[in-house]
């Protein structure tokens, strides 16, 4: 395990310059951005210059740029991301309180993608170059030509407005907002812990449309990778051997072929997490989902510098961590890989 620990430490060290680059770019870019966060915070018009100057002084915005930068980094090391000028709360607190919403959405998006992507990819590979394969391939290519925000809106029109089956937006119906006690912030889990079946049903109903909208494009991507990986392993000699041993086809496919095909599929899961976070920006905006990605867009509209810097750094670190975990997962799926 010594090698593994060293590998983890090395990878963590590599994320430090990455986050530093991201933060520096975000810090500089925001200060070049048109618009003034103080003015936006004070509501725009009719602010006396004296009050404006005083506020700028309080926030340290009258200092030279490099001093501001060093101050910001100093705070960051202590875990202080500054205060959001829009909500008035510490940015770190805002992010932590919104993270479960985003994770819950992303997780169920991925579950949907895997549930439909992997089986369809396998069928396509087993029926390669036959009508079923062509149909599935077109489905897969088509699925990532879909703009996420548009899919979300179409879902809302069809399933919420026209059919009235599911709620249009949000995470929980207003009537439960006060009675619902959050435990983990993951509503589905919380409802299960509290054994409140009524709220559980409501949470699921709110989750379906955004999760499917978010997972749809990933489904196509995952399906394609599954198909390619399965085609690769189906040609392998160990599959021929397994068949000639007289093993049942189901055993050959599931425990000989699929197990090996899972390695590239897991890689894609890691890569796609970044794409998923990008998609979450749009899904959360369309569905008024109270997550980290939607927070980013709101902060952008309000010129909330501290919230923006913090969110960008936070997402960067988070994606890097997920990639690390995915890399570590390899060694479980593929025992040949040792760190």
């Amino acid at each position: 395990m010594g090698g593994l620990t060293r590998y983890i430490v090395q990878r963590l060290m590599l994320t430090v310059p990455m986050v530093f680059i991201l933060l520096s770019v975000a810090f500089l870019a925001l200060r070049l951005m048109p618009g003034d966060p103080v003015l936006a915070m004070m509501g725009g018009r009719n602010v006396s210059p004296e009050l404006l100057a005083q506020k700028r002084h309080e926030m340290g915005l009258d200092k030279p740029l490099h001093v501001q930068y060093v101050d910001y980094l100093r705070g960051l090391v202590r875990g202080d991301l500054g205060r959001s000028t829009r909500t008035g709360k510490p940015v770190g607190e805002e992010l932590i309180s919104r993270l479960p919403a985003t994770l819950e959405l992303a997780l169920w998006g991925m579950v949907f993608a895997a549930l439909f992507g992997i089986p369809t990819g396998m069928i396509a590979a087993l029926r390669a170059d036959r009508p079923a394969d062509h149909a599935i391939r077109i489905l897969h290519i088509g699925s990532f030509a879909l703009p996420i925000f548009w899919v979300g809106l179409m879902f809302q029109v069809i399933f919420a407005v026209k059919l009235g089956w599911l709620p249009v937006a949000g995470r929980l119906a207003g009537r439960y907002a006060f009675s619902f006690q959050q435990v983990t912030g993951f509503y589905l889990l919380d409802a299960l812990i509290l054994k409140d079946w009524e709220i559980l049903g409501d949470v699921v109903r709110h989750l379906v449309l955004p999760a499917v909208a978010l997972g749809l494009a990933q489904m196509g991507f995952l399906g394609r990778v599954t198909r390619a990986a399965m085609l690769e392993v189906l040609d392998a000699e160990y599959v021929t051997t397994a068949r000639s041993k007289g093993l049942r086809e189901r055993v050959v496919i599931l425990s000989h072929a699929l197990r090996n095909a899972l390695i590239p599929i897991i890689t894609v899961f890691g890569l796609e997490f970044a794409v998923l976070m990008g998609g979450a920006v749009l899904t959360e905006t369309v569905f008024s989902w109270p997550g980290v990605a939607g927070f980013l867009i709101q902060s952008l509209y309000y010129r909330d510098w501290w919230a923006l810097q913090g969110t960008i750094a936070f997402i960067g670190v988070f994606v890097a961590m997920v990639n690390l975990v995915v890399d570590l997962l390899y060694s479980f799926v593929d025992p040949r890989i040792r760190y």
Partner: protein
Amino acid sequence: MKRGLTGTVLRALGVGTLRGQTLLKTGLVIVALFVIVAVLCAPRGGDRYGWIAGFPPYDPIRGYSNFPRLSAPSSSHWMGTDHLQRDVFSRVLAGGWAPLVVAFSSIALAMSVGSVVGWISGYVGGWPDRGLSLTMDAIYSFPSMILAIALVAVMGAGLVPMIAAISFVYVPTYFRITRAEVLRVREYAFVEAARAAGASGPRVLLRHVAPNTVNAMMAVSSFNIADAILTAAALAFLGYGLPPPTPDWGFDIQNGQRYLQSGYWWLITFPGLAIVTLSLGFGLVGEGISDLLNPKRRRKKLA
């Protein structure tokens, strides 16, 4: 293969090699159709759209007082009308040029910048190469949609900021392809020999790197254009696109969102379908090119 003049033209275009490439052909037809419509309906100054009378059928910018407001698709308005009494079909037709211009130029820009930087980085090596690779990896691993949105927000809405932001996101892709090829070719004996014979190193490398990366870039760039169309639409949807009343699919969808609760589905549906079809067209072209280039699949077909 056809004979005569048609046959000669088709052969010159390389159409014969496309036999059996259904995906590629379908994709090319879709893309060609959109490009033709986009060119015919492109702005021609003074807020006028289209070069042929009656195409687009109505003015996409100014409403008509005798048109119904927010009416559902009918025989006179195939895609309905919007809140400003404009014909949605005309707006969809006139909205095609912007995403095409943005997608093509941003990928072309990303390809040029990425290849040049990747080529220099791979050739120079050492700490500049390590620094550049690390920076490119940082950009690459960050969610591209978020990066594009943040960049456009910094630069302000409009055509040029959109192109700049989207191209920035794709630079690492081309950097990686070119750099890997430079590192591979650098080891070959003929490069050493050419250099020993007095040819300049960079020139020799360029001559051997460029042809090898073209194929990979062809497929990747069509997929990227498909993706860039979605990104451009998303930026417009969030309000960072072209200023209204310019016809723009993403912006029109955002506008339709206000009437969603009233059930006016056509305002969202048709601009969205245009985005999907165009993006799908480029996706199919990319898929077709990968099929052509992938020797494994070709071998299978021969067997």
